[in-house]
């Protein structure tokens, strides 16, 4: 028998739990040559902002042991160009597209939510709260429960689309952040975004990244991501999208057992452009081999 791989996240039906992570899959089209987009559960766009963002100077990326740092600076075409140039492609693909967005003030976030709310091709919104609040001395929304609550609830009131809050791992208490976003009305939580890391070139005596620090991703961060997903799943009722260092179907199943209803593949797509599809296929094979009829029966099935 063919196992049932379908899951439902924030009201969005996914044919399987494998999504692609924001910023690692372009706007979808870039990977069309490598991935059958109708063999994955959903894909998430590059983070979008009101105005086009050109991003940081280079170098923007550096490899670290088992991972990488990026300081792209949220480069994106901006919501207008996205609607004109990228949305038409979404129409051609029968797979839910999630729009990831950010801002530097609550107003910007809300405006983004409004703009995206009216685009039928967008199945849901993922709000990236790992950004500094310029109105509050640059404190990162996602590192303070109150700030997170305010920005998420403001966006909640600005859209009727499913709203997924994406959590930053650079916090003392990930559960407090999760609860704040739940209370603010998020329909689901995705975690984790990148840890903050740094690399140094000892010969130039300079940071490798022009931006000095960068976002840390890849297999190296998996243990932290898995721990946070497990902590949040125990404490919060919302469906969780597990993210962080997922390279294989085994990695993905670890997140599902820890409590994730779906997962996102990020850095892995750089190393293997068809990673997301391969992982979905691998998960299905594992279920078949182990006589598991539905992926849903594995969600949070960890025995502790």
């Amino acid at each position, binding site marked *: 028998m063919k196992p049932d791989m379908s899951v439902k996240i924030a009201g969005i039906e996914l044919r399987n739990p494998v999504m692609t992570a924001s910023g690692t899959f372009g706007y979808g089209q870039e990977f069309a040559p490598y991935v059958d987009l109708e063999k994955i559960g959903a894909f998430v766009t590059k983070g979008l902002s009101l105005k086009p963002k050109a991003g940081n100077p280079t170098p923007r990326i550096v490899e670290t042991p088992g991972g*990488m740092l990026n300081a792209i600076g949220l480069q994106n075409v901006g919501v207008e160009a996205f609607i004109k140039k990228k949305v038409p492609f979404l129409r051609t693909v029968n797979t839910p597209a999630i729009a990831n967005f950010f801002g530097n003030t609550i107003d910007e976030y809300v405006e983004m939510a409004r703009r995206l709310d009216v685009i039928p091709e967008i199945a849901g919104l993922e709000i990236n709260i790992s950004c500094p609040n310029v109105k509050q001395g640059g404190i990162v929304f996602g590192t303070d429960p109150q700030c997170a609550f305010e920005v998420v609830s403001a966006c909640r009131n600005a859209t009727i689309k499913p709203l997924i809050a994406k959590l930053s791992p650079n916090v003392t208490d990930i559960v407090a952040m999760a609860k704040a976003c739940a209370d603010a009305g998020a329909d689901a939580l995705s975690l984790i975004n990148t840890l903050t890391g740094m690399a140094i070139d000892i010969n130039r005596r300079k940071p490798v990244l022009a931006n000095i620090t960068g976002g840390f991703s890849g297999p190296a961060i998996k243990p932290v991501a898995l721990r946070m997903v497990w902590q949040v799943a125990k404490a919060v009722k919302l469906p969780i999208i597990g993210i962080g260092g997922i390279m294989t179907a085994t990695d993905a199943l670890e997140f599902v057992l820890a409590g994730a209803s779906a997962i996102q593949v990020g850095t892995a797509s*750089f190393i293997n452009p068809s990673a997301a599809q391969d992982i979905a296929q691998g998960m299905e094979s594992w279920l078949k081999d182990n006589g598991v009829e539905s992926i849903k029966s594995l969600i949070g099935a960890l025995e502790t």
Partner: protein
Amino acid sequence: MPFTSMILSNAEVSPGYWRMRMTAPPEFAAAQPGQFVMVRINSAIDPLLRRPFGIFDVGTYTPAHSGAQPQPYLEILYRVVGKGTVMLSALHETDLLDILGPLGKGFELGTAAEEKLIVGGGVGLAPLYFLAKELVKGSKVRLFAGGRTRDDILCITEFERLGVECYVATEDGSLGERGLVTEALVSRLSAGGGQATILACGPHGMLSAVAGIASAGSIACQVSLEGYMACGVGACLGCVAPGQHHTPETPDFRCVCTEGPVFDGTELKWRD
């Protein structure tokens, strides 16, 4: 496209420089000079990221076993500089590699009439050999090869065998003229001659100088850039280079892996 390739040979051609030949799928016949491949060094997570290498040559070989049909191959010429290339140089014939490519936008071959001046610094010669092979079919080709010392001047005999006229310059004078390859280029240009176009690959400093020389003499010029790459397919936006209109206030970045690696010299910002 991603494919699994078998190493046919992997040999050190000059101290610290290796040349690797490996099997390629039939589709690879469509590869353009200036395009590159992303090589996964091993199946482990160290090193994690693929490594980009220009296409040094493509062709076909006939396997030893009887009745074998000619098979396409691909060659890269690489310098051992760090973890990944050290590991690459330790691989043997018959070892397998996971390769993604051909990727990016290659050189425009232009019209046969114009003389082709190709300029390479050190391992920057790698994509120029494949390029020269195409160019000599219609045009007069001159190679300006530069390096710090003689060991950095690679595969000149191969270029000569193509009928390419080679001008060599080394900073320590251990081979060819003492000095920078750009000086050799300038004196050649001042010697005059018909319409010419420049195609260059090498260290950023050299490319910047070449682009300067070209615009000064209002000669068409294409350069092949490097950039730190994670994906090679336009998704990570890690590899960008500043375009002509770039200023810190109004940034203008070009994606090296998809809009490049070959750019027209005038498309780029050379000082910022």
